[in-house]
């Protein structure tokens, strides 16, 4: 797919998403604040009851900043619930029209997915700017233009990785009647093992090697730690390389599933 077509599909999707304004603002104002509130009180209680001023290198204000950052990044990485549309295309036979288009199905869907990110990016920027005025991190966090640029690269890769992780699960719809629960399982696992519920450094020492190798870390922990200036250049490059390897692996898996499923697809839906 050429870049112009990709951008056109993405912009159509972005305009479609922005048209639901009431929903957008309700979600923006209450959804994020509610989610952040739980994390905020968790951080306060954790430090108050442990009696510590530092937990694995985090002071309490820094943990709050971590949670704000990871929640905003998580929104962009997960994106809207787009994976569901792939299985719906298969169930309802809507995949047929994409097969007739002069472009591949997966890039088309990814372009739509990127377009649907626009409202989420606006939310993230809005709350990110507000957070700058409200939060007071310690000197341990070092946000610079370089860390912001590094985090943007990580978020782009993480978004692609999450899309590619979800795709094979959605393609199981070629064989099974309902697969949304698989995507939900992926979301649950990625939030815990990716660092969206707690920084991964809080996990026991014996699990750290496994967490570094698994694909989940690249989704939330890597972009967040990059943004907060907690990684060396080597750590950042290693994390990014691991994420790209996982992207390639999931692309191969999705391709294999697609090939087998395509042969089974009848075009009339299930």
């Amino acid at each position, binding site marked *: 797919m050429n870049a112009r077509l990709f951008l056109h599909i993405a912009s159509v999707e972005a305009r479609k998403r922005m048209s639901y304004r009431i*929903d957008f603002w309700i979600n923006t104002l209450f959804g994020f604040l509610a989610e952040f509130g739980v994390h905020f009180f968790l951080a*306060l209680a954790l430090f108050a009851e442990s009696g510590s001023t530092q937990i694995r290198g985090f002071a309490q204000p820094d943990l709050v900043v971590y949670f704000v950052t990871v929640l905003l990044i998580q929104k962009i990485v997960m994106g809207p619930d787009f994976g569901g549309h792939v299985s719906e295309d298969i169930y309802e036979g809507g995949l047929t029209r994409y097969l007739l288009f002069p472009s591949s199905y997966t890039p088309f869907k990814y372009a739509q997915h990127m377009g649907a990110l626009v409202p989420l990016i606006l939310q993230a920027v809005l709350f990110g700017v507000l957070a700058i005025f409200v939060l007071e991190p310690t000197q341990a966090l070092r946000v610079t233009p370089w860390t912001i640029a590094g985090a943007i690269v990580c978020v782009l890769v993480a978004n692609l990785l999450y899309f590619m992780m979800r795709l094979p699960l959605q393609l199981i719809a070629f064989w099974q009647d*309902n697969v949304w629960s698989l995507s939900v399982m992926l979301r649950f696992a990625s939030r815990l093992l990716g660092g969206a*519920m707690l920084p991964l450094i809080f996990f026991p020492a014996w699990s750290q090697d496994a967490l570094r190798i698994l694909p989940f870390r690249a989704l939330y922990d890597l972009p967040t730690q990059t943004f907060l200036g907690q990684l060396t250049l080597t750590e950042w490059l290693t994390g990014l390389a691991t994420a790209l390897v996982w992207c390639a692996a999931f692309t191969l898996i999705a391709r294999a599933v697609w090939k087998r499923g395509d042969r089974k697809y009848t075009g009339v839906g299930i």
Partner: protein
Amino acid sequence: MWRYARLYGYFLRFSFSKAMEFRFDFFFRIGMDCAWYVIQFALFEVLYLHTPLFGGWDPAQMRVFLAAIFLSDALQMTVYANNMWWFPFLVNKGDLDYYLVRPVSSLFFLSLRDFAANSFVNLLITIGFMVWVLATYPDPLGAGRILLYVALVLLGVFLYYAIQLWFLIPVFWTHEGQGLRQVFFSIGSYSQKPDAIYRGWIRRILLYVLPLALIASFPTRAMFEPDPWRLVLHMVVASAVCFGLSVAFWRRGLRSYASASS
């Protein structure tokens, strides 16, 4: 009353036969809920690596709290969650007519028609977890306290239902149910942490205005506090008031309902 019980029996029969048609989905959903239980359990286990108490509870007490969360989640998923999910679509498409013309309470019919047979298996799993947690608790727990705990968990499920309706009924006026539903799911996560961690006006809201903090925390506190009756009274009053408001809100919503053109 007997008519309603018989009707509910039909709902169960229909729901089980429907669930058996989609066997893989049946098992996927069981797996999904189990994944959620494992993740919640793991989250608190990790937290206790860094603190001896959380929300005023030690790890064994926290497991009792988790058992309350899991049981109330499994109950609501089994009994009414599917029905709540479809409610805004029914209003928008005018399909609510089908429920309104029946000679039974429309709210009863709409809330309980679809019994989630797959989540019923999770209900059994969570009961097993609760039995394990209570059996392995280091101190003796009286039978009376355990009964009170279970009764309050059931009341918490009812309270959650009443509050959830507040976020669904506005679809009669807004015609778009997704935004508020998402907000409810976000706010609902406040019930999954001990109420003692919340402070200030947020705590007051969660105890008195939007009493989500009661759902699993109060049954657990009733198990361990010397005088549980203040908590029981608080929960009974909150449930009655919330349900009364939901019914009143529902009636107003129905007056605004204009079938397919709603």
